[in-house]
């Protein structure tokens, strides 16, 4: 048989290809029975609200990362960094409440109008499932920001779930993805919230429409079949118009509300930090209900009653089979409805009214993070953290006086000297990893933001009120104000390049250092001049030595290198940190009168009675009444070198000063106490090619004797050396050079150098505190650096030239040993002795200034972390 296929005629009309007209007819022209009514349009509002949630949800998902490490940060990023992120998030947040309200209204309306009755029972069942789905969406979305509220609320909810008899615990484990709330909880809730539940809700909505429309021409609500038949109206445009008006009202209302009420984002979830969680408003009734069922009966309130209620709701159309649809003629149904609504509303109201959180002091403030400001961390919060975490040891004002008696190593945050010895990142590091012996590590207890902000806060503790210093500060063009206010200068440093500390920390000892270590060690043990080796490999070698000596606890300490000390030779270390008490030769005889316990380190018997470990311990942790712990100044390798040095003292009795110090390159300018004028243009002492007289001891008194130069000349006596007269200019020119020199060094290096130089060159006469009290008898004209009148009477040019060129009978010229740039920094340090005005109880830092510094430190920290990652990633790659 043969069939002929008849091709239908194809016109040029695109309709035949796209069928759009038919589609349009079907979608928009379909007659709505009974015509366009506001009540019918209300149902479409639900779709609009869902669509808005879907769109805002997709947008949020673009910037969200569900894991415990990143969820909170990414939501904060959305909230505070992404353009309009706060609005999208607020609309999604409040939109979920709007969804709940709309679905509830819809269900109540269905009940009142008896739409659930035959033949639309299934439409009612689906509506109830929709309500459940909407609530589940709200609940699963709650934990996603991983803030305190979401975390604790979810924890309680899952706790309630786990009390369901026999299966509860398994359900909880399944939902939270393990025994604790964690990463898998987030990924599972994320999947539920973003994929499964929305898909389910769409499916339910389709099912609702299907079940609603299946009984064709069946009276809806209060309209009779006749009326429905007489007033059909196409969906477009009348019906759509009413829906669009309602949608516009909803969306604009939501947007305006969101504009004024941001979605809350509290502190990052912290299982160790107590929090008082409360449920959302639509579950407040359950919270209140829980209070009436205690002990073993609790399960009734948490599980049985809600379950029974749910089952009743779903099966209601099958229970109420009366044909009456008029609400006025259904007293039983209406009575039940008002009882349920009244009961739920009553429980909710009582729940809010009797909530203890409103009255009692909250443990963790609900607004830990102020969402209305662009930054997540605020100064008052940092102050709170400082008070709760730090003040018990460091005092509210940061002086540390409470525990100083028991723990002398506690730093005084208000001391400028301490402040100058740390970079901001050093402080961050110490907060994070702690510091032996007493400072605990806060890495897990504080977020990075909190730590960074805390570092800035600690900085600010030493900052006096603005304008408190001498008027001079205003006129100085370079550096001075910065050092007076170390916070401003220090942060510049770390961002400029990889720091040696971080290198050491990341890679352990540099390769090759281990091989060097024994050699260096034997050098020192043999009592050879420790100054002969080039200075660079020394710290590394010492570090490696410590690592090799099997004292892992010390290598950890080596991370907190004090750079000033790390690059010093052993003898210089000794002079700087020990000589003041132990004397130049280690005999300690000068100090013995006031400190009878001081040992004679040149005595072989003393040396023999102590192990290296003893000495090491005493150096770092202090000993007896007078020996101060040096662990805030010296690292373990430094201490090791000092031990070797001290050992050498006993082996080679005799004054240290008499030992020949070879013309090692590093020591040239320093050990020459009066050299040819260094060309100021060079700026740095180390760069001066000087042939010195190296055999003089660098102690205070011979210097003073030799520097007895007439004041009128104001020039050091050139002893040896080529003198470039053309450039050896006045102090003013030296200061100009200083500007260039200063620009090259980072601020924290300069500060540390200044501190070390002060200890080396100035402390002998001017004293630790700059008052010069001990030298007053011998040198009556010695100034008191803490005297405000003296500070005000000198400008920094005068001070710098006094340092470089000497002053009066007793102050030697330090030209050649201290460069012009270093002198500048030293002046700044000397300025820091000046009296500060009484400090206010909380640091003076404006909010914006505080934020700016936190942000800057954040950048530095990120940079440092990046470098660390690169360093640690490099060599480990196979």
């Amino acid at each position, binding site marked *: 048989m043969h069939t002929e296929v008849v091709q239908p005629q194809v016109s040029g009309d695109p309709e035949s290809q796209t069928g759009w007209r038919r589609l349009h007819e079907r979608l928009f022209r379909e007659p709505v029975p009974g015509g366009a009514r506001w009540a019918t349009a209300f149902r479409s509002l639900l779709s609009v609200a869902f669509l808005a949630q879907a769109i805002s949800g997709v947008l949020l998902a673009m910037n969200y990362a569900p894991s*415990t*490490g990143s969820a909170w940060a990414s939501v904060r990023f959305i909230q505070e960094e992404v353009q309009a992120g706060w609005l999208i998030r607020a609309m999604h947040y409040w939109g979920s409440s709007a969804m709940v309200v709309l679905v509830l209204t819809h269900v109540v309306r269905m009940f009142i109008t008896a739409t659930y009755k035959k033949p639309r029972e299934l439409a009612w069942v689906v509506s109830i499932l929709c309500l459940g789905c909407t609530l589940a969406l709200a609940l699963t979305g709650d934990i996603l920001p991983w803030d305190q509220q979401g975390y*604790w609320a979810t*924890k*309680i909810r899952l*706790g*309630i779930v*786990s*009390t369901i008899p026999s299966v509860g*615990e*398994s359900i909880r*484990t*399944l939902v*939270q*993805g*393990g*025994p*604790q709330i*964690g*990463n*898998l909880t987030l*990924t599972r809730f994320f999947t539920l919230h973003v994929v499964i539940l929305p898909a389910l809700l769409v499916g339910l909505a389709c099912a609702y429409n299907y079940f609603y429309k299946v009984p064709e021409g069946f009276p809806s609500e209060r309209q009779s079949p006749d009326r429905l038949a007489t007033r059909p109206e196409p969906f477009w445009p009348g019906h759509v118009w009413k829906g669009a008006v309602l949608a516009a009202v909803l969306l604009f209302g939501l947007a305006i509300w969101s504009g004024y009420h941001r979605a809350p984002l509290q502190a990052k979830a912290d*299982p*160790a930090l*107590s*929090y*008082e*969680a409360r449920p959302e408003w639509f579950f407040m009734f359950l919270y209140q209900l*829980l*209070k009436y*069922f*205690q*002990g*073993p009966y*609790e*399960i009734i309130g948490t599980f049985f009653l809600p379950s029974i209620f749910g089952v009743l709701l779903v099966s209601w159309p099958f229970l109420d089979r009366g044909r009456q649809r008029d609400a006025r003629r259904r007293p039983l149904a209406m009575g039940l409805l008002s009882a349920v609504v009244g009961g739920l509303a009553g429980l909710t109201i009582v729940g809010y009214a009797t909530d*203890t*959180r409103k009255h*009692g002091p*909250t*443990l963790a403030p609900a607004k830990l993070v102020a969402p209305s400001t662009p930054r997540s961390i605020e100064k008052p919060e940092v102050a709170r953290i400082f008070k709760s975490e730090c003040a018990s040891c460091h005092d509210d004002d940061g002086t540390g006086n409470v525990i100083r008696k028991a723990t002398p190593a506690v730093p005084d945050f208000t001391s400028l000297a301490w402040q100058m010895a740390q970079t901001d990142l050093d402080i961050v590091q110490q907060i994070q990893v702690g510091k032996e012996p007493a400072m605990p590590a806060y890495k*897990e*207890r504080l977020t990075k933001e909190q730590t960074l902000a805390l570092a800035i806060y600690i900085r600010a503790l030493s900052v006096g009120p603005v304008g408190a210093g001498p008027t001079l500060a205003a006129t100085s063009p370079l550096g001075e104000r910065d050092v007076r206010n170390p916070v401003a200068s220090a942060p510049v440093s770390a961002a400029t390049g990889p720091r040696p500390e971080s290198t050491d920390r990341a890679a352990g000892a540099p390769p090759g250092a281990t091989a060097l270590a024994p050699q260096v060690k034997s050098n020192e043990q043999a009592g050879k001049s420790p100054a002969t080796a080039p200075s660079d490999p020394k710290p590394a070698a010492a570090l490696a030595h410590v690592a090799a000596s099997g004292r892992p606890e010390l290598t950890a300490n080596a991370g907190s290198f004090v750079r000033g000390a790390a690059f010093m030779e052993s003898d210089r270390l000794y002079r700087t940190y020990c000589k003041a008490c132990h004397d130049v030769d280690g005999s300690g005889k000068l100090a013995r009168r006031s400190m009878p316990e001081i040992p004679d380190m040149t005595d072989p018997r003393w040396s023999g009675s102590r192990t290296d470990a003893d000495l090491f311990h005493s150096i770092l942790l202090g000993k007896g009444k007078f020996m101060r712990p040096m662990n805030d100044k010296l690292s373990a390798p430094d201490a090791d070198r000092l031990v070797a040095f001290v050992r050498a003292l006993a082996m080679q009795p005799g004054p240290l000063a008499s030992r020949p110090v070879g013309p090692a390159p590093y020591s040239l300018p320093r050990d020459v106490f009066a050299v040819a004028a260094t060309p100021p243009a060079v700026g740095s002492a180390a760069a001066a090619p000087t042939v010195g007289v190296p055999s003089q001891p660098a102690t205070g008194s011979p210097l003073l004797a030799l520097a007895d130069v007439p004041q009128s000349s104001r020039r050091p006596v050139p002893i040896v050396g080529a003198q470039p007269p053309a450039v050896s200019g006045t102090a003013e020119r030296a200061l100009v050079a200083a500007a260039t020199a200063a620009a090259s060094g980072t601020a924290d290096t300069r500060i540390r150098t200044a501190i070390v130089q002060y200890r080396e060159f100035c402390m002998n006469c001017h004293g630790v505190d700059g008052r010069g009290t001990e030298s007053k008898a011998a040198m009556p004209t010695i100034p008191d650096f803490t005297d405000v009148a003296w500070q005000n009477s000198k400008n920094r040019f005068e001070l710098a030239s006094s340092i470089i060129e000497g002053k009066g009978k007793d102050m030697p010229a330090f030209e050649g040993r201290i460069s012009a740039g270093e002198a500048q920094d030293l002046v700044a340090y000397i300025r820091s002795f000046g009296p500060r005005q009484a400090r206010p109880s909380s640091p003076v830092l404006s909010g914006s200034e505080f934020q700016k510094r936190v942000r800057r430190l954040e950048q530095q920290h990120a940079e440092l972390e990046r470098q660390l990652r690169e360093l640690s990633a490099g060599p480990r790659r196979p």
Partner: protein
Amino acid sequence: MADLRHHRRGFLSFCNAVLLSVVGMLGAVPVFRYVGYPLRRRGGSSSTEQSFVDVAAVADLPLDEWRLVPLEIVHRDGWEAVRRQHPVWVRKRGDSEGEITVLSSVCPHLGCPVNWRAEESKFFCRCHAAAFSADGQTLAGPSPRSMDPLSFRVQNARLLVRWEEFQNGVEKRKPLEA
């Protein structure tokens, strides 16, 4: 003829049903295994989850005073090991082991943190107002049992505590499998 066709269609429908249900059921096996992974995970706990953790020096604890001490444990959390702090309540009445009490700070009710109220000298959970005596016994509120004691020991004058979580909301103390 029509009868045969009818039979053929019936047989095909039956085959469809069988084939699709077999495919569906086979497909469901890995799906359920995948989703149910948390239920079956075992032996995944890291070393510190089961062992005693050093929390403080006994000498540092104040005498006869409840002190919240953080206990740090490495938990396995999905794809990563995380260090997590669990605060525990510790009170020392003397230096010997028998005079120390260690209580979990997790409320036996629904898992909120329990706080010490020194002014009323009782423990209190602010989530659902559960109150416990200074010894951790239930005084008021919804908690079905008293606060959970944790096992500990004193070694070299240091206090070591083993962290444990118990099923919440039930009267009988039952440890959760970590």
